[in-house]
């Protein structure tokens, strides 16, 4: 039986070492503002193409509309997701996942763990998959998805993706009712810090900024800049004139897509996007993500074999 973890960070550390022991490359968070761990290129782009892949990482995630000035017990505009992606999905992925719950102190003989139908779809990434939300005693603790399409491309082979909402999971494991009361480091440490000591003030500041002071015109301009830049990067010829090498700039272009997506979220929180405009913005971000996916599959990491110009890289639009 595993002993119970004592802090938020211990849960993260245990997940890191568990997935490292199962052969995942433990990556670091992507250094941009994203809405979820799926946006990390280690998931979105690496789910494409036929190269095997296994990675796990923490991803700070921002959802400006969820800001509650640090007052709501479980809603935050900035939170952490733990993300695991393995391609091709191994046949024992459910068991591996259950092992990770045991690693963080959830005794699966004492709790009621269930896989409840939940089909995942990201309209901004042009991605979808089938899977479940995982319930522990009636609470959703993870999202479990077999990717079928990303950026409009069929995933072959299929990646298995696990996403843990870290705060919620940790609150459950640690028996804490308000996120701000959760021990961040060891409660017996010389300088014991709670989650609120680290994040209450920032939640307040960002809530105010996101809802009331972010400059909508600037956000709009930046959105359009990112959109234009993404297209410009992708329109550059594959051959780099400086090195003479074939360098398709899928990742720099994808950075612009991520930026556009976050700017859209900020505009949404600012309340300046009408219901009818919403769909149009989501479509614009999706077009960027799709273009980046199209570019990625023509790169080496995306499974492109140099010299094989006929490699089938066309998007399969069946969904």
């Amino acid at each position, binding site marked *: 039986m595993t002993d119970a973890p004592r802090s938020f960070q211990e849960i993260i550390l245990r997940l890191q070492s568990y997935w490292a022991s199962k052969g995942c490359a433990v990556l670091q968070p992507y250094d941009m503002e994203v809405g979820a761990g799926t946006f990390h290129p280690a998931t979105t782009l690496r789910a494409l193409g036929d190269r095997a892949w296994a990675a796990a990482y923490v991803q700070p995630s921002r959802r400006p509309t969820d800001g509650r000035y640090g007052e709501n*017990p*479980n809603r935050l505009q900035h939170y952490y997701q733990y993300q695991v992606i393995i391609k*091709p*999905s*191994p*046949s024992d992925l*459910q068991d591996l996942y259950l092992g990770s719950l045991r690693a963080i102190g959830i005794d*699966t*003989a*004492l*709790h*009621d*763990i*269930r*896989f*409840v*139908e939940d*089909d995942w779809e990201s309209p901004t990434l042009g991605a979808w*998959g*089938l*899977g*479940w939300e995982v319930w*522990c*005693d*009636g*609470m959703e603790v993870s999202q479990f998805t*077999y990717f*079928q399409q990303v950026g409009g491309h069929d*995933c*072959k*082979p*299929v990646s*298995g993706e696990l996403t843990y909402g870290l705060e919620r999971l940790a609150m*459950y494991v640690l028996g804490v*009712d308000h996120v701000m009361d959760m021990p961040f480091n060891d409660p017996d440490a010389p300088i014991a810090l709670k989650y609120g000591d680290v994040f209450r003030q920032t939640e307040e500041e960002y809530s105010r900024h996101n809802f009331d002071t972010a400059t909508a015109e600037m956000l709009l301009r930046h959105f359009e800049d990112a959109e234009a830049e993404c297209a410009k990067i992708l329109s550059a010829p594959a051959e780099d004139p400086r090195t003479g090498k074939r360098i398709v700039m899928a990742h720099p272009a994808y950075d612009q897509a991520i930026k556009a997506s976050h700017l859209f979220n900020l505009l949404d929180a600012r309340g300046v996007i009408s219901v009818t405009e919403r769909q149009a913005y989501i479509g614009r971000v999706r077009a960027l993500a799709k273009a980046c996916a199209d570019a990625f599959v023509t790169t080496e990491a995306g499974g492109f074999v140099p010299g094989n110009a006929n490699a089938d890289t066309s998007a399969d639009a069946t969904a």
Partner: protein
Amino acid sequence: MPDLLIELFSEEIPARMQARAAEDLKRLVTDGLVEAGLTYASAGAFRTPRRLALSVEGLSAASRDTVEERKGPRVGAPEKALEGFLRSTGLTLEQLEIRDEKKGQSYFAQITHKGRPAEAIVAEVLSRTIRDFPWPKSMRWGAGELRWVRPLHSILCLLTDEEGARVVPMEVGGINASDTTRGHRFMGPDEFSVTSFEDYEAKLKRACVLLRAEERAEAIWSEASSQAFAQGLELVEDRGLLDEVAGLVEWPVVLMGEIGADFLDLPPEVLQTSMKEHQKFFSVRDPRTGKITRFVTVANIETRDHGATILAGNGKVLAARLSDAKFFWENDLRIVREGGLEAMGEGLSNVTFHNRLGSQADRIERIAALAREIAPQVSAEADDAERAARVAKADLRSEMVGEFPELQGLMGRYYAEAQELKPEVAAAVQEHYQPLGPSDAVPAAPVSVAVALADKLDTLAGFWAIDEKPTGSKDPFALRRAALGVIRLILSNGLRLKLSELFAKADDRADADDLLAFFHDRLKVHLRAEGIPHDVIDACIAMPGNDDLALLVARAEALSAFLKTEDGENLTQGFKRANNILTQAEEKDGVEYSFGADAKFAEGAEEKALFAALDGAQPKIDDAMSREDFGAAMAAMASLRAPIDAFFEAVQVNTDNQVLRRNRLNLLSRIRTTCLMVADLSKIEG
């Protein structure tokens, strides 16, 4: 006669797809077996969250040999023809038969197709079934190409007879069939092998899996009821939830918990909806107070602490959910107490109903005016109807309905009561949505009826005005349902309404005749279900006042009953005979014979008797019609049957005497006019 056992073991199958999938498996496999020439005695399909199973009993061990006879070339035909025939049949010359025919002798071949063993057929049929399975949504996984609802892990495929059990050799997507499976994910995870269906079901039970969904549902229901009963409480029935929950567990463990005292004042429907939608909990009611005081959750595991941890966790999640609900409830009540439902509904002017029909606020304005108009015709106070219409949609802006859209109307009623609106107004807020479907209750309270009619008629006339009518299977605005709702409101309350006038008042841009025809179509569907044939309805629709549906239906019911009698049948025939002769004569002569027949030209007894019968029946029919007593009117018409029959028997209408002929045609015209008073009998078929 071997028995066949199949199990497809996978990761968790969505609960809503399981029942259909089990039936599909049974259908596709048994159909495939029969098509390939096997027979079987019986078949049963089973399902749990992780497996579909099929048991086929009394399967034939092999398909029969079949013999095909083929005629070949004539004896003495060119060598080439014979060679070709031998090649195509795979036989030698000695194996052919020579038969005498009219034109000489011919070769005949008897080709025997050997029967195939059940194994080979089962392997082929099951492999095809798995590959082409009709999942509503399926997926690939790993590096494979096979599609299933979630990753498929193993295939058990076993034929069992007196000699024992044997695995049917087959492979699909890299999975080889075997005789093994696994039990419960946590309580019986080890692999085990089975030898027959009985052995399979028994061993699964030992490994904590109840194979039969009905058995799981029954176990949940009886255990939950008895736990509630032991506390002097009762379980709130919910068949849909029971079926769903039975599809979420392989080993149901029923746990009952308390709802925190803080939440007991929430309306029972709120507690019930929140618990059901979010947590799949059953509600437990205190029969003395009618309040929901506890919940029942169904776990999938037995634990050493008897579910204490699970119950505590679930209770915590529920408390968080109900805190939200309580927050919504209190916020909504505060708004209503301060400014009434009117204040709550303020934002409706910003909510679009349809871009060509304006905002929700515009729509409410129209419904209020129409409800006022309808009120006196349904014995409702006009002021009450208008008031109810003005607040009926306000709860769409409440936080509670935002969270639980299915509580619309009901929450409005709670808030109307909190605002101390008249009880009939509050009731109308809830009831004006009804009836929602063909089996939903129909409001009877006058204010509710007025608003319910106004709401639906506004929608129908509005969409007719902008030409957004239902086409084929497409009815995105549920206009058929709305029309049926109006029909049921009218009929069950016996309302006498002139629909065409109401259409014009609702939206004068709508094509009222076309909309009325739409109502007539819906009415036909509704009445056909009650056994009234379409030609009877058509005969009544052809009469004046057909926008008064209560009158139309009374007419149709009387006619339908009358036509079932012998009198009715004969009168219809008599009418048709009279009508045919008359119509032909009118066409030939180019005149209409409606001038009035004169009894003084009547010749024989039969003709005189018919005049007398018409004279005698007329006042009775007129009297019955003035009372809208269609049954009595038709009974009076029935008295004409014998005289009409006798008349046609004895009298020649088209005689050479033009005076007599004209008079008799005018007599037929009287019959026609009389018979057409209740319905257009010319539309009756047969």
